[in-house]
């Protein structure tokens, strides 16, 4: 049984059909890619699966359990961690606080502990902190733990987002253009991090990317989306040679 299964999902914004009849199956430990030209609906699909939008039609199952229509925070605590295309970080909070925050749903000390600073809270906060440090080490920014987000360079902010998503203990990690705006050096580092995370934690990863080099190197299976519809699905080689994909990216009848 697939870890994450999306069945015939569609979504309409007013009269516009942004996603049409989209299906997906991700197995445990798989890295999948989603590519497509601008406005194809890639981020909308992420937002639909992670609960920010509710799909007009279709169902989503995580480990066989239906998660369609649940609020985003519950979907996240069921095991879908994500990053955002335009990095949605909390600008007044430190790096360490970002990662700790993602443990929210696993905190058990409750309001009583929060108000009165019980020993249980002390213990739990220390555990969370330890875990946060280990995640920051994994993405290579443990030395920045005390910094406020605003003071961080772009590449480091991307890493914070990944560490934060990992702290929710996801079963599937959704990465929305993790290398957007990066120079070639940062790009290679980011790919290293994705590989490392995949190897260390055995996650399934679902990746939106614009740079074909990244998807082609990382992903086992790639879907190509155009106008909200999957037009091709297959291994990197198959996708690269698919005439429909070439049409979508370069326009019909183009002579290369």
């Amino acid at each position, binding site marked *: 049984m697939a870890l994450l299964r999306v069945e015939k999902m569609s979504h309409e914004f007013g009269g516009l059909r942004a996603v049409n009849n989209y299906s997906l199956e991700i197995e445990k430990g798989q890295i999948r890619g989603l590519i497509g030209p601008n406005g194809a609906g890639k981020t909308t699909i992420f937002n639909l699966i*992670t609960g920010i939008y509710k799909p007009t039609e279709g169902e989503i199952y995580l480990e066989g359990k239906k998660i369609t229509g649940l609020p985003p925070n519950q979907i996240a605590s069921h095991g879908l961690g994500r990053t955002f295309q335009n990095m949605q970080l909390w600008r007044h909070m430190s790096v360490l606080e970002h990662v700790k925050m993602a443990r929210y749903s696993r905190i058990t000390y409750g309001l009583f502990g929060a108000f009165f600073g019980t020993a249980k809270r002390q213990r739990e906060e220390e555990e969370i902190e330890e875990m946060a440090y280990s995640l920051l080490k994994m993405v290579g920014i443990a030395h920045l733990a005390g910094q406020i987000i605003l003071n961080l360079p772009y590449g480091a902010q991307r890493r914070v987002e990944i560490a934060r998503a990992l702290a929710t203990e996801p079963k599937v990690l959704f990465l929305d253009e993790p290398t957007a705006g990066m120079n070639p050096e940062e790009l290679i580092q980011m790919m290293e991090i994705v590989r490392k995370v995949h190897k260390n934690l055995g996650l399934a990863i679902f990746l939106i990317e614009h740079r074909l080099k990244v998807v082609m190197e990382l992903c086992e299976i790639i879907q190509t989306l155009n106008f909200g519809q999957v037009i091709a699905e297959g291994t990197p080689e198959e996708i690269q040679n698919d005439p429909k994909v070439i049409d979508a990216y370069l326009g019909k009848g183009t002579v290369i």
Partner: protein
Amino acid sequence: MNEEYGKIIGITHSIKRKARSLFSEVPLLGWLFGMLIAVILERYVGEALAESLGLSKIPMLFGVVMMLKNPLMIPSTVLYLFTIFVLPISVVARLISGPANRVAAKLLDLPILISVIIHIGLLYAVLYLWSEASAYRVLTLKLTLIAVILTLSLNVVNGYMGEFSCSHPGFMALGAYAASVFTVVLFVDDKLFGHALLPAALAPFMFPIALIIGGIVAAFGALVIAIPSFRTRGDYLAIISLAFMFIVKSMIENLEVVGGPRGLSSQPDLASLPTVFIWTVACIWVTNNFVRSTMGKALNAVRDDEVAANAMTVNTRRTKITAFLFAAFWAGVAGGLFAHVLRYVNPGTFGLQKLAEVLAMVYFGGLNSVYGSIVGGVSLSMLGEALRPLEIFKWIIIPLLLILIMIYRPTGLVAFKEFNVGKLVMPKNKSDQRKSDGAASG
């Protein structure tokens, strides 16, 4: 000419640097001890000194009233303040900084709670001795402490959570009336509610219950606002909460049971200085615990990016409602204390003017900061009291000050600063600090 000017600047700079290095090693314990000496000094020689300086009495609120009434008195008032407060505090603090550091380091070997309690005890002693000089000082001090509770609780919503709530006077009114009705019904022979049900000796023990009831009633009121307005973000809360404030006010005005617009009086005299002080400390302690926990940090996450907070498993709706009810609870407690300090409340008190005051304190002191709320609450309520002789001009000066703050420090005086009690009670010189660090880790 220019050279001379430069020289003067150089001299003032070096004086500043020297002063800073002179006092950089004084721990909080030393300052508190210095203040204690100063207030004891005032108690014994204050009157004599005031007389010899030609002042009619001890300057009550640091002489501002005296100076405003009669500008000729400015030199002698300043001289008084210097000899009674500035000089003893700085000299004593500097002289005992060595032993004070050693004591502070020793105290850290024990559980931190003991050190904190000793500091709070000292602070209370200072406030008590200072306020003992007159009933006016006691009243001002109580109202200032209540203002701190109000400011801090509003800061949770407007600062930490980044929403804009206008209903604090409403919550305060609910708390004030609920607590008053509770104590008046139980302990006072009153023409509105008839004979006392319990002996008056029990009243001090039941007063915390009265305040908590006040807080809970206010929190219920908050729930009425929270349910419809936290579905989305934006200006909804500001509008709904403003409406709520007016609804509460006119509801009380029309409730003849509690006296209507004439107000409710004859509350028993329960809000003594220690009571108000303890409740203020409790409010600061609980709020500081809350906002420093990961659950409390969720408020900041909601403020800075709610979508991201949601995607990181934070239950944003519950977070917002909890914080709002929490703030309303403390506003209710503050209202209860307020009613028992003045021993009279009327609905007119809890209107727009009160709202403006509390909002000014929050934004003046600093958003997202416990320090800021203490600074804002204390400075604005003291200032408001001190500028009283200016009458209408007071309401020009204070808003002007607020505008200046908004221009030069848009988030307030001490915004976004963590209130770390452990750090506050630490010894300030290097060697003792290291020693206590070693003890803490060992």
